[in-house]
């Protein structure tokens, strides 16, 4: 899978929690992911959602997605058209939730990436090419289970297709 898009950075780098992704003000009353998508990152970056182009990458530091288990967080990111989240590390519930719904998360050293950089991501090869800076970066390999879930288009399709979990190689 090859993904192309721009780097989008936020005012906060580390520990971006799921409250910041989608505030409780919205997630408790709105069920439509497209409506939720209009409010992502609102508390830390005003108007962020209106400036997202399809395929953009959210880029951050350590522990992205910590805090609340709300699946609305990856759902709203995906519904906003974001191609993948690239960070130095992810919190565990957000990590599962994202692959469960088919949003790829890529672990990589993100320090060199700047707002607006143009990236080309090759998930199979585990490589990110920063075309703006002409640099190649390596993605930490995605665990087998997660690759399997991505390939099956999320955990629901995986579960239906195999009549349960099927992770044996």
């Amino acid at each position, binding site marked *: 899978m090859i993904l192309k898009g721009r780097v989008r950075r936020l005012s906060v780098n*580390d*520990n971006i*929690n799921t*409250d*910041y992704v989608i*505030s*409780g*003000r919205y*997630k*408790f*009353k*709105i*069920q439509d992911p497209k409506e939720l998508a209009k409010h992502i990152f*609102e*508390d*830390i970056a005003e108007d962020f959602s209106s400036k997202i182009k399809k395929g953009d990458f959210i880029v951050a530091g*350590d*522990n992205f997605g*910590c*805090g*609340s*288990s*709300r*699946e*609305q967080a*990856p*759902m709203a990111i995906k519904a906003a058209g974001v191609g993948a989240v690239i960070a130095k*590390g992810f*919190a*565990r*519930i957000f990590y*599962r*939730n994202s692959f*469960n*719904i088919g949003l790829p998360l890529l672990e990589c050293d993100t320090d060199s990436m700047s707002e607006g950089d143009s990236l080309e991501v090759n998930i199979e090869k585990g490589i990110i090419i920063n075309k703006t800076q002409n640099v190649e970066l390596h993605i930490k390999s995605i*665990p087998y*289970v997660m690759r399997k879930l991505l390939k099956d288009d*999320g*955990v*629901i399709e995986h*579960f*239906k297709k195999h009549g*349960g*979990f099927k*992770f044996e190689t």
Partner: protein
Amino acid sequence: MGKGKTIAEKILSSHAKKDVRAGDIAICDVDFCLGQDGTSSIIIDSFRKLKAKRAFNKKKFSMIIDHSAPSPNLGVSAIHRKMRAFAKEIGVGLYDIGEGVCHQLVPEEGKVVCGDLVLGADSHTCTYGAINVLSTGVGSTDLAITVASGKNWFLVPETIKVVIDGRIPKGVYSKDIILHIINAFGADGCTYKSVEFTGKTIKELSVDARFTISNMAVEMGAKCGLMEADKKALDWVRRHSKRRPRPVSADKDARYAKVRRFDISRLAPQVAHPHTVDNVTDIQGAKNIKIDQAYLGTCTNGRLQDLRIAGKVLRKRKINKDVKFIVAPASKKIFLEAVKEGLITQLVNCGCTVLSPGCGPCVGTHCGVPADNEVVISTANRNFKGRMGNPKSFIYLASPATVAASALEGKIADPRKYL
């Protein structure tokens, strides 16, 4: 390197019906699962997408309406109605408005016992680690799969052992201890790890106080925050559940990723400053910060013991005239017990506003949304920007005693002089 097993390895092995170790993937049978009103709507949608028709076991799944209860708006009302209809349709338990916070209700109602494996569509599901339950938070779709099949997959976590020793100083509570530990590890210091809390101090604590510690394990990224079941824990579980507890201890030669020791004998009351839970100082570093609101409640500190501590600090004094002090007992049982003890009368006479049992203003949908630039001191577990509904407000976290003392003075205050 030891050959023994940690608590997490043992519980996951017994539920996978095979021997698993840290790093393995295990498909396990789950003993109980739950959702709340912030997550159940997607649980229901995912359950439908799975084309499931029934719960794997009607007694092993409950939904709790606690996060925005009673409903503050039409959107939430629609979600509550959807939950009620779904519970009827598939015949599972539903705890409606006013029953309490999920993480108080689940153990209090005897749904979980020592040795269980539990999933909840709520990140603070790790609370039941205090009674030797491997419980952890997942998203709604993961939960829906468990509702339909009784199973889920687990990465067997490595374990960090946290040994807490020392006599607890006056005015210091389990909330102060866990804030101190989170400060030491940082918000991602235990990501994807199981934490075993052990040591003499844990044994001294009541089960109520232990829940506070396990509850906040997720604030340093942990999958679960487990404690061994001593007599106190077993008695507590037997008082609340008819099911047989199956206590699980770590082997002496179990393999730990890290062992960290804390001596809390000289610990002062702790305060987490905005906007992260690991931004902690002693009370001295927060003293005299003017507050507009105080909040006592939540799955962290809304238990009977917490209300009693606040009552002890307040006595018959009036809270500061510029402070709104909101109190929400964590369950109906706690509420009624507090009524019986005269605590509710006392708190109301001091100037507190008492809400019906539930999550109250913790998640920012109702019942105490702060205005711009307002400062809140709360017994909750999160102080993220916007958490209580306004990104322009500031949230400090502390123990019930510190929150009550601060409400009296109108500024963040050391509770020790009131005790």
